[in-house]
């Protein structure tokens, strides 16, 4: 049996409802747009608020809030046969009760646990790796995640940029997180094109790229460690790794030099007042 539903989370919960009402065990799930040809009989599942709220409440009541969150997050992952895996988990949960989320020995639980762990890890990575650009006071950024992380990272960006208007576009799933007036929502089926950066924006990108290059210690270079923490799939979204943001240093005080800047004062840099600080007496200040 194949279930055809609208692709939303509430739609999926209605599938769970239907499978119980009709005593069916659907093997495949698809949306009407995914015109897969199967020989199995199909059932059209309509999204009915009465049906999905009933299933949703039962997850909390009959299993546990942890299990409900696992199902909710599981639906956002890119796990293979996602709906089928979640349906099996829910069925097991109804039988086993709250302990189901601890049963990692069980492959049916572990599969979802692993996918959700990957989703949450990716969300954590994107909290750091999102880069915004400013256009007329508004911020915009693009990401390319494997999982649908937007709803997981939204509270984080809401907290730190609460007064800002920003848009974060998910290229993989064509969704966008829109934040304005202190509220956020996620829009589906969006197309988005980044505008060209203005002078001020370019300057910030260049400053950041320079900082990034300068702060590395050449004698400790460790490309494997960098790739482990920041895998290459993120690199084309990171401002500091785009060659066009790298301006050639105008002075020998370049951060690319291996250790100390070449040891000569740069013409045009006036000595900072108090450079040799004749007035300071280290012996005295040590006592304070």
């Amino acid at each position, binding site marked *: 049996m194949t279930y055809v539903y609208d692709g939303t989370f509430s739609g999926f919960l209605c599938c769970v409802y239907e499978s119980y009402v009709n005593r069916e065990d659907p093997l495949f799930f698809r949306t009407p747009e995914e015109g897969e040809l199967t020989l199995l009989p199909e059932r059209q599942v309509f999204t009915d608020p009465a049906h999905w709220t009933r299933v949703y409440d039962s997850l909390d009541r009959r299993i546990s809030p942890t299990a409900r969150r696992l199902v909710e997050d599981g639906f956002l992952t890119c796990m293979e046969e996602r709906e089928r895996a979640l349906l099996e988990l829910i069925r097991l949960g109804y039988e086993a009760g709250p302990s189901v989320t601890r049963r*990692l020995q069980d492959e049916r639980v572990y599969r979802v646990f692993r996918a959700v762990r990957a989703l949450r890890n990716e969300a954590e990575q994107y909290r750091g790796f999102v880069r915004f650009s400013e256009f007329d006071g508004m911020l915009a950024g693009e990401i390319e995640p494997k999982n649908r992380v937007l709803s997981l990272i939204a509270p984080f960006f809401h907290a730190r940029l609460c007064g800002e208007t920003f848009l974060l576009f998910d290229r993989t799933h064509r969704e966008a997180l829109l934040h304005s007036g202190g509220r956020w929502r996620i829009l589906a089926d969006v197309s988005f094109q980044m505008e060209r950066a203005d002078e001020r924006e370019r300057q910030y990108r260049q*400053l950041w790229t320079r900082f990034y290059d300068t*702060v590395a210690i050449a004698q400790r270079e460790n490309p494997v460690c960098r790739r482990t923490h920041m895998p290459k799939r993120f690199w084309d979204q990171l401002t500091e790794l785009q060659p066009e943001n790298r301006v050639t240093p105008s002075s*020998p005080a370049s951060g690319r030099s291996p250790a100390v800047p070449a040891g000569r004062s740069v013409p045009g840099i006036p000595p900072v007042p108090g450079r040799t600080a004749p007035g300071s007496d280290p012996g005295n200040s040590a006592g304070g």
Partner: protein
Amino acid sequence: MDLMEKLTILSAAARYDAACTSSGVKRGPAAGGIGAAADMGCCHSFSADGRCISLLKVLMTNACAYDCRYCVNRRSNDVPRAAFTPRELAELTIGFYRRNYIEGLFLSSAVLRDPDYTVERMVETLRILRYEYHFNGYIHAKAIPGADPALLEIMGRLCDRMSVNIELPSEAGLNLLAPDKSRQAIFGPMGQIRDGITENRDAVARYRHAPRFVPAGQATQMIIGATPETDLQILRLSQGLYDRYRLKRVFYSAYVPVVENTLLPALDTKPPLLREHRLYQADWLLRFYGFRAEELLDEENTQLDIRLDPKCCWALRHPDFFPVDVQTADYRTLLRVPGVGVRSAKRIVSVRRTGFLRFEDLKKLGVVLKRAQYFLLCSGRAAPGLRMGEDTARRALLRLEAPSGCAGEQMSFFAPCER
């Protein structure tokens, strides 16, 4: 001088400071302001050396009145000097923060004129950030040894974390290489910050809106490999700092030779990265695994084994402690098993209530079986096909550490970053 040049000079001068985390304080947004702080911190990027970039790490100025031998910014070194004005640094921080480049600001400084003047300029920067931009993100500030305690008090109310660098693990080393800094000048402010935090905890317990003082605690850093201290001395020092000064973190920084001096290792010396890595591992054992420095090292073994991590070393020296049964051992015992970490130990304790654990289940819980198999029993049995004996275990564990047989030059060190 334009902003680009200043940023280049002042971030290059700050890059040897390892303490760049943004953890330890949780704070929601401020009304009409910008920023928040997440409890577990956040890494925004990783530089070419694999270290986490979380904060905009700069010096207020690199023009220094002191002449510490190991330091690039010392008075007698002929390098370009620069200084940020408080306002331009605050503006730069906000510009970076809005674009999600950083989690906040890490502000240190060379001693410009005298310690008090230096701290005043730093405080002014923090004041602009906190009171003009209403910035609620993370700020880490260095306490400048020798500054007026009243100024440090003000600074502590504006920032989240403060640190005083120990610089060198012993007083002898300090006298030799940093003649302008005394032990007293370092431990004085450290004690002041500790007492301030304790006092503030009382105040916050009594009045909910009491202003917070250094809510993310204090940290310090020491340079490894510039002076001849042993690992035992270093770990004892760290342990003392955690116990007596209640520090949140001690950072270790492998000495990178940047300055030519007869008192220092030669310029072509490689930074002792593997030793630094082992010290961090031992440091983790002190903070999260319930080990004491005396358990890891003693007067006969004063150096950590470079070839094997300290937990494995301890386990091999204590065959009487093992094997441990996963089903019955308590949490603290599980933590002592090589290959079992804090997370996997917690998972074991939770999952074993629902049924017996097999070796293949342990793998799913995040246990590194390659190490743990020599020390664990499942349902009273050792891992299938495992030949036991102290020497087999030692040889197998050594092989895991250096697969190519070399001294581990190619190993990937974890970045001394979050958590």
